[in-house]
């Protein structure tokens, strides 16, 4: 309920103004994406001549083909596709492992509480908020000692560790509102720790599982700091490859190829967002407003 119900309803001029302002903002928000898209389909000459808002006069897929398969990143000229698959190799295990750990943590922290459970949760939760600069130097050292420096495996470990805070937060908040009576009744019937989790809680957890997967997927996919700090060469994720491609100083800048590569890096999270936007929104809010 809000004041919205009557505001400006009586006033058609105010109503039109309201829509005009909202539409103007929508155009503003869509502009960069639109410019990226049209630029990625233009030949380079057209970019140098014309206006960036105009649609391509001659459409070309060449920038996309080049970005995917033959653009030079460093000394290697095979496009971003290898780095794209690196990101997939990192995202899938990192999301699954951190999600599973978070689900168990949330379950324990709400349904099997022990003395000091709040402190444990507080300590885990704080890890969501640390600036990652504080862990870069020791982590580089530890990855070296474990012989997983400069590998996608190393990045999986990093993302699992620093994903636990958020996944635990999501599941803990979700299970907090799950009726304790059901769990208590199952305990009285002699059901054990895992039986209760897999038979009672997990089937009811689909919404929060979706939220956690979307959140972790976008966070891990979009990561740049860990990728650039702990990998180099052909083990880097797509974000690092994109940055190297765009900010390399050699040769003529192929803006159309850069924009196509940026679209390649953006497409997975955009798809997830469009398909599951409603859950995404709900997840963002449960993660930040509820604490």
């Amino acid at each position, binding site marked *: 309920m809000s004041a919205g119900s009557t505001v400006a309803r009586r006033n058609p001029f105010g109503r039109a103004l309201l829509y005009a302002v909202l539409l103007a903002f929508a155009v503003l928000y*869509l502009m960069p994406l639109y410019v990226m898209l049209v630029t990625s389909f233009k030949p380079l000459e057209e970019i140098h001549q014309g206006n960036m*808002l105009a649609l391509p006069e001659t459409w070309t897929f060449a920038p996309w083909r080049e970005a995917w398969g033959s653009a030079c990143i460093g000394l290697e000229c095979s496009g971003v596709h290898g780095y794209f698959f690196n990101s997939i190799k990192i995202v899938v295990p990192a999301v699954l492992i951190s999600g599973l750990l978070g689900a*168990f943590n949330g379950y324990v922290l709400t349904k099997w509480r022990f003395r000091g459970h709040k402190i444990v949760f507080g300590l885990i939760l704080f890890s969501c908020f*640390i600036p990652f600069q504080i862990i870069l130097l020791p982590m580089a050292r530890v990855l070296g000692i474990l012989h997983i420096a400069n590998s996608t495996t190393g990045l999986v470990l990093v993302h699992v560790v620093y994903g636990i805070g958020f996944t635990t937060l999501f599941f803990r908040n979700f299970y*907090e509102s799950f009726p304790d009576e059901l769990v208590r009744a199952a305990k009285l019937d002699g059901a054990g720790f895992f039986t209760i989790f897999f038979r009672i809680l997990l089937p009811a957890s689909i919404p929060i599982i979706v939220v956690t997967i979307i959140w972790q997927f976008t966070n891990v996919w979009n990561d740049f700091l860990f990728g650039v700090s702990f990998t180099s060469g052909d083990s880097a994720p797509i974000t690092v490859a*994109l940055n190297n491609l765009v900010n390399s100083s050699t040769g003529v800048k192929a803006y159309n190829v850069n924009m196509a590569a940026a679209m390649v890096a953006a497409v997975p999270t955009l798809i997830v967002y469009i398909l599951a936007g409603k859950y995404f*929104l709900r997840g963002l809010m449960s993660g*930040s407003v509820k604490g």
Partner: protein
Amino acid sequence: MSTSPSSRGIGDRLQHWLPRLVLSPSFVLVLFFVYGFILWTTWISFSNSGMLPDYTWAGTRQWSRLWSSWTWGIALHNIWVFGLLYIVICTVLGLLLAILLDQRIRAEGTLRTIYLYPMALSFIVTGTAWQWFLNPGLGLERTMHSLGWESFSFNWLIDAKMAIYTVVIAAVWQATGFIMAMFLAGLRGIDGEMIKAAQIDGAPTWKIYGRIIIPQLRPVFLSAIVVLAHLAIKSFDLIVAMTGGGPGNATAVPATFMYSYAFSRNEMGIAAASAVFMLAVIAALIIPYLYSELREPRS
């Protein structure tokens, strides 16, 4: 026949310890990789480490080198300018959009999706897009010229005095939708009774918002500011992608400072000290917030 006390004891003990056992891998990981690393980095900041780690105690040598560094001064100044503008503009614009969207708008879902989508994109992608958009000579400037506005000029990206503001523009674009979503959730959670009463009394809409609704959004303001401050202090990707910290050091912030001292200038000690400082600022902000969030009984 009853079960023997000893076997029941084992089962019970297992049931008693199992939950803690399941939680322990995560807890150990967090203790080591978060708190252990915090101590480790703090130790480096008091050591002689330069290009190579060297754990001999050096007192506050690295810290005084940090504070006498000219670049660090720029980085602190920039994060202050950037952070303040970013927090204020995102909060005001986010609240405004939320209030506008809350007026029973026909296409609310679509508009919300449009405002929020930048949040799903990587900072590297959006930084790349904005770098192109604001490119002096080819982007906005060129477009305005070709539309007939010949005298239009926009070269903030390469102007040392203005470059930090281009980062603010991109960062605001990225996060406003998220703040709007938080405020929208807050608006939807407000009790309607007082609003109805005020409406019956004939209070004008702006008064209802100013006197009744916005004051009730205090917790959302707090959350929004904490989230934004935290994002601002961590900002790294966007700056790397948009300006690379340049021109010169014009858009350096603590996060880019730390990275360059750690990985390209081989000054681990100074890098560690700057990281500890960043953590201290965030902790001063987040710990009281988390404490108040966790202490209150949940409604």
